């Protein structure tokens, strides 16, 4: 009986360690995952997509509704700069990934809007965010407790 208890406790501890380790890894690896990749973002409503190409180095990111543009930006550094600059008329996008947070910023006409994705879990080709905090220029600020997803497409 005692042996059985020990086995059960060992199994529980092993499960907790595995899942805990996975959670710690997944919640702190977004900064390693995103550079140099293209992600498809699915909106809160689930019916809109955006494509994000993160620069291989630096904090620039191409954010566009056009998949082809996003993929083109990922071809080479010069292509990235071409697309980034051509899109800069409608705002310059930057990002910062730290710990379990991923923040995207848009700067246009000296106004900055920010979307900070919180409780980010990054595993395989998927990034899952539990909520996001936003500060949108001349529009509003707050916290949305809605999950959003990013899927790596390249």
């Amino acid at each position: 009986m005692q042996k059985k208890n020990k086995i059960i406790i060992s199994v529980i501890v092993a499960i907790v360690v595995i899942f805990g380790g996975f959670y710690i890894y997944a919640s702190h690896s977004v900064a390693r995952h995103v550079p140099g990749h293209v992600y498809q973002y699915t909106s809160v409503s689930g019916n809109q997509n955006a494509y994000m190409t993160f620069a291989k180095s630096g904090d620039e990111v191409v954010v566009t509704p056009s998949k082809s543009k996003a993929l083109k930006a990922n071809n080479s550094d010069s292509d990235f700069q071409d697309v980034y600059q051509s899109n800069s008329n409608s705002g310059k996008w930057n990002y910062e990934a730290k710990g379990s947070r991923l923040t995207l910023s848009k700067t246009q006409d000296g106004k900055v809007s920010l979307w900070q994705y919180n409780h980010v879990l990054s595993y395989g080709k998927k990034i899952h965010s539990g909520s996001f905090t936003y500060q949108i220029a001349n529009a509003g600020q707050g916290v949305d407790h809605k999950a959003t997803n990013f899927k790596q497409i390249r």
Partner: protein
Amino acid sequence: MKFNYKKQLAAAFMTAVLAAPLMATTVATANNNASGSPEEQADITNWIANTPQQVSNNMAMQHIDMNNLNGTRYIIQWGDTLSSISAATGISVAKLCYDNNIQNANLIYAGDVLILNRDGDVPAGYVPNVNPYAVAQTKVTINNGPQNVKITVMPQKVVKTYNKYVDNSTTNNDNSTTNNAFTAPNDSSSSTTEGNGDQSDNSSEGSSEAKTSTKNTTTSSHSKKHSSSVTASDLVSGLEGAQDSDSKLSFEEGDGGDDAELVSVDSKAILKDAKKGDYDAALEEIEKGLGDKADKDATVYIELDDGDLSVYVSTNDDDSSSEDSNKDDDDNDSSSQDQDQDNDDDSNNQATNDNQDTDTNDDDNDF
């Protein structure tokens, strides 16, 4: 009969309770044409410029015949820009602006109606002062949860621009300090008439007014939150904001010259309160030091030298002003005018810029 009446009353009450949320939603939808819940409105996809193809799709959804754009009404969607609408319809940005009286504004609003008209020309020399790449904005402030949030992880490159934008969007209205950086322009909601073709003119005036007001800047609540040090200018505006409307005290920077006398105050406590943004407590400390003079018509001078705070006071000896209420009103008016002038004063603006630099450094450390 009595039983039936009660039953009917209960049924009517229950129907009202059940229908109330539906009615409220209908009213809200009518007031705000920008569709979606706050969660959906704040979604990043709404703030990415639509491609012309997306605009065309949106127009198709609204059953707009692209071959017959003659005064056609199009409801502006999230992510639309004048540039993308122009590319989708073949109507120039200038023509769109002219037909819809969009002037002196960078904004179009999701939910507003845009008149699409291929016919007619734009008068020679008509050059609209707009940014055609600006994404459609909202007239209603999007808020979910807390009124003020803090972004803890921010790209280093935008920190300075962010701080500058937030600081420049702060206005001092009478006794309160408000920040319009993340608030929809207030004037636009009341000045817009949907679908009459000149709504954008009104809303553009509203937004330009909002922009003008942001230029009268002194200090920001944001800078107070993040700053580890407080300047004399911060203190003056904070204290002015904290005092009651009937208070006769006025605050200025400096030592007040020979006429002013030093006030014994707990400077550490005042600075501590100011750093926390608690100017009510700071004002209380100063009034404690002023004693009877706190009720008199006096000017309090704030001097901050290398972190050492000195408070001076200079009372206005004109007794008639305290006895004559009309005279008091005049004094108050003139002091408020002085404040307005201070706001426009270049030197004060320069001080604000200095504050911004300090705050930026502080925030750099935070991030």
